[in-house]
């Protein structure tokens, strides 16, 4: 096996050979110089030359062999070297490729913290395209000075201490403001003599992990805040219903200083069995079926006997594979609510028991209200009527004097001119009729206006009816009115002003006659009755009449006609002064007003309605004399 010749050995071989070859030359040159002397000498010289030549030949041959050996050795060495270099280059390329393809950032810095080498990941991190672009530069060329200074301080510390720094977390703020985290290991770089000539660093980007950690930390913090502050009790249990985690509120309910103290315990450790058992059963059922318990109201019984109420929701707790590994739940204390509910139920029951009384009271209140309303309306009406009355009296009195003058004047004219001219007499007659109409209106006003005392005597209503009919006999006949008298015998005596009561019936009969221009039936009905509560109350607010009493005996007179009736909208106004449904000139609008006034002066009441079968019914109610 050929030993590889060192460089020194090769140099020595080469030098020896050249030295020997150099002496041979000087001898050849001296032989050539003496050739010109003589033949002997020449022959001698030739022999010598021949020997020298042979010697030389031998030398050359020997040297050539040596050279050949050397050459072969050298060639072998060159080949070896080339192979070694090739292997080295391949190794370097492999290493380069390796570090360039590593996602971790790798970099080497000298003692002045200048980059000597780095990989692609590091170059890209610094924002350049190739690792060569970084060589010779410092961190400050790529990042804010403060940041660079921090890095270099760490590097210097490593170089000074000659100690590596392992797995430190570094945060870098990029020019765009984003932050990147890296897990970095830095170690001192030594030369062949062991001197520290720089540092080698390798940094792994852990930004995603850090961000995930931050998100998780934030979520954890929120969860902790929720667990610590929510007033509802939250708890997690394993498959055996042992607490694995409870929140602050639950710990407080259990009287635990630290929620961790509940770990491994069960409801049986805190509640009486009365509550713990059904709660346990619910949870085991939930674990078996996966069906949650939602808003279940539970009564909690505690060892000291006191009771609380909660609204509980429990859900299955699953692992990532979906397998149920326990339960978790939240319970809201509704004790106060339940108490209020119970009180409400009690109050409701009480209310229910008082409902009948309340309804009755309400009914009475309503009736009182209606009575008050009626009284108020009547008071208003009374005020109105009094005002109108005063006005009417004044007007009537003032109008009568001129009417008196006109009447006498017409009489005078009639006596002076009537006999001479028929037309003049007709004009005077027409004027006298108009005058009488005006006079009747003024009379009506006075009737309405002047409140007079009644001249009351015991009397029978039937007699007054008959007298009134008698007075109107002529008009009834002329109007083709059939009179039907349904007058009950033996009616009780009434306190009556005969004249005014007669005026009442005459007014009513005249109205009926006018309501039946083509004839009809006038029915007058009298009878006694006892007032029912509604009828008594109807007149309770009457201003002038004494109030009728419930069950009081009264005499009723009804006047029915078979006319066309009164329009519904006019019914409420028929007693209003100057309201009339009759054609102009046929009514003063005071008849029913005066009639009502007279009836009320008697302590009675009057009402009007349309009869279902047609026509109008006027109902008068008079108090029986006591």
């Amino acid at each position: 096996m050929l030993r590889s010749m060192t460089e020194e050995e090769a140099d020595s071989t080469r030098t020896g050979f050249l030295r020997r070859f150099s002496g041979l030359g000087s001898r050849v040159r001296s032989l050539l110089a003496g050739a010109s002397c003589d033949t002997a000498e020449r022959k001698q010289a030739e022999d010598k030359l021949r020997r020298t030549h042979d010697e030389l030949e031998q030398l050359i041959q020997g040297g050539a062999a040596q050279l050949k050996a050397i050459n072969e050795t050298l060639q072998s060495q060159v080949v070896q070297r080339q192979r070694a270099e090739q292997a080295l280059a391949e190794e370097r390329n492999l290493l380069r490729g390796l570090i360039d393809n590593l996602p971790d950032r790798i970099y080497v810095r000298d003692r002045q913290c200048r980059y000597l080498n780095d990989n692609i990941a590091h170059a890209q991190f610094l924002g350049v395209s190739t690792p060569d672009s970084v060589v010779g530069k410092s961190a400050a060329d790529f990042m804010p000075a403060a940041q660079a200074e921090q890095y270099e301080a760490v590097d210097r510390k490593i170089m000074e201490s000659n100690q590596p720094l392992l797995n430190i977390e570094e945060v870098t703020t990029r020019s765009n403001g984003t932050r990147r985290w890296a897990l970095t290991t830095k170690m001192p770089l030594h030369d062949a003599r062991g001197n520290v000539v720089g540092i080698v660093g390798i940094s792994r980007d852990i930004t995603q992990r850090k961000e995930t950690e931050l998100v998780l930390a934030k979520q954890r913090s929120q969860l902790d805040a929720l667990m610590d502050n929510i007033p509802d009790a939250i708890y997690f249990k394993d498959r055996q219903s042992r607490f694995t985690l409870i929140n602050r509120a639950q710990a407080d309910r259990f009287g635990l200083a630290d929620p961790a103290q509940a770990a491994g315990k069960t409801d049986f450790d805190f509640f009486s069995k009365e509550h713990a058992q059904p709660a346990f059963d619910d949870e085991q059922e939930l674990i078996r079926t996966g069906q949650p318990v939602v808003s279940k109201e539970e009564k909690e019984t505690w060892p000291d006997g006191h009771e609380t109420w909660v609204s509980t929701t429990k859900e299955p707790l699953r692992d990532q594979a979906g397998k149920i590994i326990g339960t978790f739940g939240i319970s809201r204390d509704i004790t106060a609510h339940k108490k209020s509910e119970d009180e409400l139920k009690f109050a409701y029951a009480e209310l229910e028991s008082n409902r009948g009384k309340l309804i009755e009271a309400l009914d009475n209140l309503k009736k009182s209200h209606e009575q008050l309303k009626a009284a108020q309306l009547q008071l208003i009406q009374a005020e109105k009527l009094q005002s109108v009355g005063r006005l009417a009296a004044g007007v009537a009195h003032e109008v009568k004097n001129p009417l008196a003058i006109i009447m006498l004047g017409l009489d005078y004219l009639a006596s002076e001119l009537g006999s001479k001219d028929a037309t003049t007499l007709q004009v005077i007659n027409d004027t006298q009729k108009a005058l009488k109409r005006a006079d009747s209106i003024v009379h009506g006003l006075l009737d309405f206006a002047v409140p007079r005392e009644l001249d009351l005597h015991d009397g029978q209503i039937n007699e007054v009816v008959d007298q009134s009919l008698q007075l109107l006999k002529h008009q009834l006949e002329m109007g083709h009115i059939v009179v039907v008298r349904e007058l009950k015998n033996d009616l009780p005596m009434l306190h009556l002003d005969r004249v005014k009561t007669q005026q009442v019936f005459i007014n009513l009969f005249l109205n009926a006659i006018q309501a039946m221009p083509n004839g009809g039936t006038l029915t007058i009905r009298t009878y006694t009755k006892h007032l029912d509560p509604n009828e008594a109350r109807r007149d309770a607010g009457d201003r002038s009449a004494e109030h009728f009493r419930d069950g009081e005996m009264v005499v009723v007179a009804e006047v029915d006609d078979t006319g066309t009736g009164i329009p519904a909208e006019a019914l409420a106004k028929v007693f209003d002064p100057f309201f009339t449904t009759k054609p102009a000139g046929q009514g003063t609008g005071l008849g029913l007003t005066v009639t009502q006034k007279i009836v009320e002066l008697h302590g009675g009441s009057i009402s009007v309605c349309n009869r279902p079968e047609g026509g109008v019914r006027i109902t008068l109610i008079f108090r029986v004399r006591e």
Partner: protein
Amino acid sequence: MITTITKRKILIIDDEPGFTHMVRLTLENTGFYDVREENKPLLALSTAHEFKPDLIFLDVLMPDMDGGDVAAKLKADPEFRNTPVVFLTATVPKREANSSGGLTSGGFLFLAKPVGIKELVKCIEDNLKPAQQR
């Protein structure tokens, strides 16, 4: 033989001159009455003394003195104690006057305004004896 009819003397006391004038005109127009008007109630008694009426028509509501007072003074005077006094008033409806027979609660006669000549004449004639019988 010519019969001379003595006209009846009628005094009308009312503060409304238009009315007294018309009463005078219509009554005198019949030819049977001599009428004197007095519009001031305070002068009623002196006018009556001077005129010596057979019948007096008297308004009720008048300024200064109402008809009731005037009537009381007349009735207190022996000369007029028997002279019929008829109230002519706008305060009482005709129906009441008729239904009460024309008498007030104090025994005075009364007529409700407005009143026609026939009513006036009837009232006068009903309350006075024939002139020849006086």
